[in-house]
């Protein structure tokens, strides 16, 4: 370990720096922190440039490359699990360095052709993103800086689930579906009757459940007019046909009595 610790941690203007960078906290037993401190090769590169108080555009590629490689070498020496991304960057730097060292025709001395241009562009974009990360981190954050109010409420106890809604269309659709099934099982026959007749049948049955019998004439109301009379008459006929009611006459020409079928018989038996 002692030998490894004497490795230069970096170079400033060609001078090896044996001490760890002062602004980096590196516990003696945990040099891994170096890797944790930098979020990647771009971060390390940016650090090396800023360390010399230089602008990205003026990046001295030779110095930076040497320093970068020293860092990477040190990490390797320490057998830190080095992300391959650091080696990729080392290769990029080496390539730029070699291109810079190659002599080139004077006309082509053009800013566009600066082999550093691409890296400078990337560094600038990375720097902008670092700034963005700082902006985000300095925003008040729910759970860290601000807490949301949690106020008790009894409102949920008042929540009622409304009953399902049914439309007339739903109903007629359901009925026509039943009719289709009936048609399919041809042995059933649904008779053609006016709905008002069926309703009147219910009313007659209900009336007869309460009273033992009613007079035939009681089932006809003057206010309902002719149509009403027809409906009542049809309902009575249908009920007779379905053997649900019985008609009886005590004397000839007297009013006809209507009663539920069987009940009267039952009563006459017990009487």
């Amino acid at each position, binding site marked *: 370990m002692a030998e490894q610790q004497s490795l230069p941690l970096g170079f400033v203007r060609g001078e090896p720096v044996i001490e760890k960078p002062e602004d980096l906290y590196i516990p003696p037993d945990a040099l891994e922190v170096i890797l944790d401190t930098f979020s990647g090769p771009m971060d390390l590169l940016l650090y090396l440039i800023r360390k010399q108080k230089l602008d990205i555009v003026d990046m001295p590629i030779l110095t930076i490359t040497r320093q970068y490689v020293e860092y990477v070498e040190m990490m390797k020496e320490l057998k830190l699990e080095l992300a391959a991304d650091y080696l990729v960057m080392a290769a990029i730097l080496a390539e730029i360095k070699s291109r810079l060292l190659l002599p080139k025709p004077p006309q082509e001395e053009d800013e566009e052709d600066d082999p550093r241009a691409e890296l400078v562009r990337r560094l600038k974009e990375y720097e902008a993103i670092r700034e963005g990360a700082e902006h985000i981190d300095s925003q008040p954050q729910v759970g860290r800086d601000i807490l949301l109010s949690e106020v008790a409420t009894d*409102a949920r106890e008042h*929540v009622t689930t409304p*009953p399902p809604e049914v439309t007339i269309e739903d109903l007629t659709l359901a009925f026509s579906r*039943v009719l289709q099934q009936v048609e399919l099982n041809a042995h059933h026959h649904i008779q053609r009757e006016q709905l008002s007749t069926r*309703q009147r049948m219910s009313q007659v*049955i209900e009336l007869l459940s309460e009273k033992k019998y009613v007079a035939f004439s009681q089932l006809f109301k003057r206010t309902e007019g002719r149509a009403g009379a027809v409906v009542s008459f049809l309902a009575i006929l249908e009920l007779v046909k379905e053997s*649900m009611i019985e008609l009886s006459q005590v004397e000839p020409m007297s009013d006809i009595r209507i009663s539920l079928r069987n009940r009267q018989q039952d009563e006459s038996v017990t009487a």
Partner: protein
Amino acid sequence: MNQLQLKQLIEAALFAHPQPLSAEQLHQLLLSEGEASLTMVKGLLKELQTDYQERGIELVKVASGYRFQTRAELGQRLASLWQEKPQKYSQALLETLALIVYRQPITRGEIEQIRGVSVSSNIIKTLQERNWIKVVGHKEVPGRPQLYASTKEFLDDFNLSDLSELPDIDTLDEDDERTAETAINEREQ
């Protein structure tokens, strides 16, 4: 921290904490040693209760401490924030209802015979609870089964003044039969 800031801190703590906090907890957890006395905390809690007297929420003391809660008289109105969408009735229920409406008075057995399946008691119960159907009597056949019919509430709920206002689909004429057949064919495929 001055008095106002302390009050704000206690207020914020009561709003942020999911469980009620007692004066002692507030004093112990929130304030540094010697910052304020327990009596002072209690005084600030009283002040807060007064501050919220005219607001939509109130600071109340329950068994385990103080908590903010919505005013009781607002509960009913606030419930609409959690109101659920109504569910849908099953086909079986709709068909049963349709048969009772269109073929009343009708027994359960008759409904079952037409539909070809038994009618669950739940369906009858649901329809009765909604006051859409009622028992109007008994059919005088063995077992004296109940006869179901539609109610006035049914007419009201469907905005009808009379059953005759329902579309008449009694008569399956030529056209309808063809449609029915097509539908059945489609269903069988």
